[in-house]
């Protein structure tokens, strides 16, 4: 920046900051150090927070006006069990809810499917019908609390159930706030919770984007997720590059489906991993914002600044947690949470120390929440925006991760003959994503195995791995209860209505000009199950089988 643009940027940022202060938007706390030293909101050069390309943050006030949302992911057992955990989180100062579903639900299977044996309510909560959704949010005001639902393959059915739940409990759809993950592309690359092949899946995604833009305007229709790509073993740069490439692919798909960029892009949000290499992570978060802004403006012609802002949720790295000496994971999570805060995240889930062993116990989940509360309130990380901006190492890291990501985009653009969407499809088909991720995972394992890379408690400093503490066990009775719930719904519903609604879903799936969402909402209101609705679409879409390449 030249001196004059720098001073203009500074003045513009200062005006935005002062305007927020004047309207009482800043938190009512002293912005000083623990020793009482007053500190500026931001140090160093522009562009400043809230200024394109948003490298330093998307808001001119960042955490001075509002801390990140402390959004703790929870779900296990029956809907009633998770409902109780949700209420506990809200009572303890959690500011948003995040739903973990069990494996059958994530794969669109009912609890009574042969595929579900042994998995019902184990890795999250089981949701088969709208009645489960009603129980899940019983006595929680979904008009006021924002909810995140981590589901992809059957995302349309789950969003339909959430909408139908609001309809049946008298909450206006326009008041609903939250996010549905709905990022199907990374399923083929990393998490593997797909149902249909990529192309029909993208039609479902664009239908959902259109539906939420019209009906639930405060809902984030996709959370484009690098988290699982990283957990599967990718490098930080590839986590970022694959995620943003998927983001570009959704933009291209939505535009091809007839939407205008600025009509949907402000509702796209992201989800990243925060791993243990502190500076690399912060560089990654800063690069993410810069790349997204630049591409949205330059390549996709966005004009609304909100379309250019990379808003993201962060979760600490589950894969970094060790089964050995599990309590030391608390320290890992604290460092990772610190990186997320200094990287400017909008919301954060901190992992529980016992997650390498099982789902978290209530105590472990509480310590995890307390960990990010310490970062927010005691460390000063929320006082100054982008506190590491301008540090030579962090600026270099930001540039370097951006450079590596641009190489990936160039490769995909090439694969897709000028279309990132086609490039991503091609990379799924030819195994590019899977093999890059698996190779990086294996390289890391070899380094740990040879002792070149020290993981405390695993290959070094191994004394003290004593008795393991209590872990959360899911009572097998959960499966019986859930099966009883499902049987009760099935016996009480109108079978003719079920049949008619499922035929309507299949018909809508066969007609790309019809939006699937209203049809699915009708079906779940008639108490069609998640699997029945999914099977009705499968008749048109088919089922995806991953090529078993190592």
């Amino acid at each position, binding site marked *: 920046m030249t001196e004059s643009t720098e001073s203009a940027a500074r003045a513009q940022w200062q005006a935005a900051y002062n305007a927020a202060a004047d309207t009482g938007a800043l938190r009512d706390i002293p912005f000083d150090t623990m020793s009482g030293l007053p500190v500026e909101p931001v140090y160093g050069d522009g562009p400043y927070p809230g200024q394109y390309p948003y490298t330093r943050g998307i808001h001119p006030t960042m955490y001075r006006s509002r801390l990140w949302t402390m959004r703790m992911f929870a779900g296990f057992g029956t809907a009633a069990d998770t409902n109780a955990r949700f209420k506990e989180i809200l009572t303890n100062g959690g500011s948003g809810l995040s739903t973990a579903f069990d*494996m*059958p639900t*994530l*794969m669109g*299977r009912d609890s009574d499917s042969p*595929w*579900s*044996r*042994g*998995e019902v309510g*184990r*890795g999250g909560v089981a949701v088969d019908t709208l009645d489960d959704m009603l129980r899940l949010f019983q006595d929680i005001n979904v008009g006021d609390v924002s909810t995140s639902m981590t589901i992809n393959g059957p995302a349309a059915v789950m969003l339909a159930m959430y909408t139908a739940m609001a309809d049946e409990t008298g909450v206006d759809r326009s008041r609903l706030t939250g996010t549905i993950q709905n990022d199907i592309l990374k399923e083929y690359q990393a*998490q*593997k*919770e797909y149902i249909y092949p990529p192309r029909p899946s993208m039609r479902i995604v664009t239908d959902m984007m259109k539906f939420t833009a019209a009906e639930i305007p405060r809902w984030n229709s996709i959370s484009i997720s690098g988290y699982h790509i990283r*957990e*599967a*073993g990718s490098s930080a740069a590839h986590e970022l590059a694959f995620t943003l490439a998927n983001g570009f692919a959704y933009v291209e798909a939505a535009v091809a489906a007839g939407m205008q960029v600025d009509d949907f892009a402000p509702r796209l949000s992201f989800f990243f991993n925060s791993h243990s290499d502190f500076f690399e992570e912060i560089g990654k978060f800063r690069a993410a914002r810069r790349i997204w802004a630049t591409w949205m403006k330059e390549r996709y012609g966005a004009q609304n600044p909100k379309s250019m802002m990379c808003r993201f949720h962060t979760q600490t790295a589950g*894969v970094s947690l*060790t*089964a*050995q000496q599990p309590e030391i994971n608390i320290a890992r999570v604290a460092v990772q949470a610190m990186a997320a805060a200094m990287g400017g995240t909008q919301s954060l889930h901190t992992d529980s120390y016992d997650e*390498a*062993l*099982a*789902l978290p116990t209530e105590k472990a989940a509480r310590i995890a929440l307390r960990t990010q509360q310490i970062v927010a309130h005691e460390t000063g990380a929320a006082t100054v925006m982008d506190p590491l901006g301008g540090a030579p190492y962090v600026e270099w890291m930001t540039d370097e991760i951006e450079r590596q990501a641009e190489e990936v985009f160039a490769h995909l653009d090439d694969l897709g003959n000028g279309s990132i969407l086609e490039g991503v499809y091609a990379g799924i088909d030819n195994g590019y994503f899977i093999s890059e991720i*698996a190779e990086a*995972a*294996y390289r890391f*394992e*070899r380094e740990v*195995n040879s002792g070149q890379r020290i993981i405390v408690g*695993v*290959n070094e400093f191994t004394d003290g791995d004593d008795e*393991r503490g209590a*872990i959360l066990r*899911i009572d097998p009775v959960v499966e019986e209860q859930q099966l009883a719930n499902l049987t009760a719904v099935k016996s009480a519903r109108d079978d003719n209505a079920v049949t008619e609604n499922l035929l309507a879903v299949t018909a809508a799936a066969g007609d790309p000009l019809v939006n699937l969402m209203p049809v699915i909402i009708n079906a779940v209101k008639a108490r069609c199950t998640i699997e029945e609705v999914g099977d009705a679409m499968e008749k048109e879409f088919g089922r995806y*089988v*991953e*090529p*078993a*390449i*190592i």
Partner: protein
Amino acid sequence: MSDASAPDTTVRHRVILAKLGLDGHDRGIRVVARILRDAGMEVIYLGLRQTTDSIVAAAEEEDVDAIGLSMHNAGHMTLAPDMLAALEAAELSIPLIVGGIVPDEDLQPLLDRGVACVLGPGASAEEVANSVRSAIAGAR
């Protein structure tokens, strides 16, 4: 490990690796596949969403020496016994190895039911390869 039980490293073992059921966490099994290949074994990776029937069919067709299942979703106490029952029903005496997230207190019950060995997070490449060889040796 004593010399008497030292596994035979000269034979080229054939091993099936698979994900049984819905669980899609495949980072571990993909790493294990490469470890076993590097250790000189022939790995037949069946991929995701396998059933006990599909694994039995593949085991018969490929004439394998061991089967490795990876489990990260707390389904091991149901799915591992299901797999053992399916192998027994097919009259196949092929050692079954379970890898993944298995709580300590489930280790002995799994071994008691007939699982040849359980490999948890943090097992080294040598442990993985040696455990598979020992399981195969033990089954003979």
